């Protein structure tokens, strides 16, 4: 009953007028960036982060979280109506959602995507409320060696799940660790990798890196493409409410997608993307009519859309209980919490209950707002899709420029963002994933710290990582994951996900 008491306390925080307003702004912007291809939640959150420095930390995190799960809702709209996924987690929705739209069933496809997302989002929030406190209590017993091994596990799982070449993802993780350690050494105060550039003394800012890697690079890639007309579905949308048969076909995929998504979301490495693919595969395998998948099966929309939404709630668990981000968005939220002087970790629940329970409860309220925003306003989102790219991309660039500059009122931050923008553009060209770089960059200083503390504890012996039971289990898991790609079947699945991503 303690949990219920906490949830009601959180609801009290979430319904405060300012928090409600920020929640609404968050889910609104989230839906907007989900709808607009070329601008994902990672770039949007990093763009808006500097603007939240003057607001209360609780309201800010409520808004930034709203952008994340709101984007999952919005992403389905473009997948169904235009066959262009607004963000990676909605790629699968294109397969059957667009086919349904072509058959004149765009309404039920959008409807079931929104209802499925709502049910799954709710499930995810309840799961988060129940699972986070016991996990946090357990994490209090962790020492530096356990934290170090957990971070190694996180990075390994991420490189495994990121899709594409695992070798390249590991390379990016190594580079990310170095980028994260640029600046003054915490113990000796010696500058590292600053090359006489003053702004690097405090380290490389997460926001210029993320905006460069995910915002600027995406624009550069789109600029070099020859413009093609987007085919927007012209028939009038009617009957958004799915009929009884639609519900019968969708209810189990929604339930399965919710559970799968939540569990996969906890794992590091783009849980929302992976979970939508896994859910689609499971539904196709369990279906009595697998031949209908890819031709407009409603289960192919309901399952993945539910999975990607509950995964967003699951992703908050490692961040809020262990202080370890599981994907790029969580890495930015970790950075934000550090800036607000609320370092996430097992003590966050007790030291800042208003933030923890307020954010969880606001996610529930946000899900209701999204249902209201998405169903009646679909016409508005479709109109936004018609904003031509030649007008859109200068606006995205301008927001990135202002966002980077206003961090420290220093044009050098723009320069840093541009460097990572060009690097991100080349990385995409050469098929290197940016997510392991960002995550490793955030974890880099924490890893450095915990590794050095562990070695000091053990008197310089690396065996400390193999004599403590939790570390041993975790490193065993790391070894298994590193060996998994050798199996041909696993390798094939990773390749498929990587290509779709």
């Amino acid at each position, binding site marked *: 009953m303690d949990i219920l008491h906490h949830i009601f306390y959180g609801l009290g925080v979430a319904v405060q007028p300012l928090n409600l307003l920020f929640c609404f702004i968050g889910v609104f912007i989230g839906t907007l960036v989900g709808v607009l291809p070329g601008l994902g939640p990672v770039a949007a959150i990093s763009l808006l982060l500097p603007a939240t420095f003057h607001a209360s930390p609780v309201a800010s995190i409520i808004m930034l979280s709203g952008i994340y799960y709101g984007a999952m809702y919005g992403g389905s709209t473009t997948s169904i109506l235009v066959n262009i996924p607004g963000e990676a987690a909605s790629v699968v929705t294109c397969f059957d959602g667009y086919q349904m739209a072509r058959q004149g069933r765009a309404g039920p496809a959008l409807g079931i995507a929104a209802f499925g997302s709502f049910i799954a989002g709710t499930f995810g929030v309840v799961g988060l409320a129940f699972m986070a406190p016991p996990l946090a209590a357990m994490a209090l017993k962790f020492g530096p060696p356990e934290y170090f091994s957990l971070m190694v596990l996180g990075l390994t799982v991420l490189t495994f799940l990121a899709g594409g070449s695992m*070798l390249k993802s590991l*390379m990016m993780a*190594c580079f990310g660790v170095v980028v994260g*350690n640029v600046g003054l050494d915490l113990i000796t105060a010696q500058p590292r990798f600053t090359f006489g550039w003053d702004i690097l003394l405090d380290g490389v800012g997460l926001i210029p890196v993320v905006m460069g890697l995910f915002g600027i690079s995406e624009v550069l890639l789109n*600029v070099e493409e020859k413009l093609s007309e987007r085919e927007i579905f012209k028939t009038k949308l009617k009957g958004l409410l799915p009929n009884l048969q639609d519900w019968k076909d969708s209810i189990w995929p929604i339930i399965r997608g919710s559970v799968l998504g939540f569990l996969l979301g906890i794992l590091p490495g783009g849980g929302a993307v992976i979970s939508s693919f896994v859910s689609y595969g499971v539904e196709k395998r369990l279906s009595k009519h697998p031949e209908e998948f890819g031709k407009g099966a409603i289960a192919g929309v309901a399952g993945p859309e539910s999975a990607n939404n509950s995964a967003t709630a699951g992703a908050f668990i490692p961040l809020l209980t262990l202080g370890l981000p599981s994907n790029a968005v969580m890495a930015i939220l970790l950075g934000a919490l550090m800036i607000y002087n609320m370092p996430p970790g097992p003590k966050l629940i007790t030291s800042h209950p208003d933030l923890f329970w307020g954010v969880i409860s606001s996610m529930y309220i946000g899900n209701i707002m999204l249902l209201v925003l998405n169903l009646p306003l679909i016409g508005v989102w479709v109109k936004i899709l018609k904003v031509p790219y030649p007008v859109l*991309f200068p606006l995205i660039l301008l927001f990135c420029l202002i966002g980077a*500059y206003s961090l420290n009122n220093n044009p050098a931050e723009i320069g840093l963002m541009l460097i990572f923008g060009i690097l991100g553009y080349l990385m995409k060209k050469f098929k290197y994933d940016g997510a392991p770089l960002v995550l490793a960059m955030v974890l880099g200083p924490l890893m450095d710290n915990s590794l*050095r503390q562990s*070695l000091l504890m053990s008197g310089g012996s690396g065996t400390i990582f193999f004599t403590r039971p939790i570390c041993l289990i975790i490193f065993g898991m790391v070894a298994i994951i590193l060996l998994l790609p050798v199996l041909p079947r696993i390798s094939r699945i990773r390749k498929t996900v990587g290509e779709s991503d």
Partner: protein
Amino acid sequence: MRNTDQSSSLFWLAIGIGIVLCSLKYGIGTFHEPGPGFITFFAGAILILLSLGLFFSCFRDQEGRSSLKSLWAGLETGKVLYVILLLLAYTFLLKPVGFLISTFLLLSLLFRVKGPYRLKTIFLMSILVTAGSYIIFEIWLKAQLPKGILGW
């Protein structure tokens, strides 16, 4: 150069070597007392090994790997360079010239990159977006954008 993976692996190999050399300069210390370059040394060393692994894996598996030229074939690469140059110029001009003028100029040039718009339309859009962003960021969010030669 044979393919994209070989070229990129050489790039990361060079970066890895640079990281290792710098880390040695900062001091990697010992296992008893790790120095400031300890973790970056190992990250750089692993990066070197992985780059070499990628480089040599290209000889084993030639199929499906694209050539460097094919990455930019049929694309408007000149526009990418143009946009990068504009953004660089903006970075240098923002402080001395000020937000309003430099942003208006940047937008006027950016709207022309992909759009078949008339000069009058571009002029109008640039003014509206510059004014709108000034109101949002400078007046509402108090972002303290650079004033430059206009003084406001």
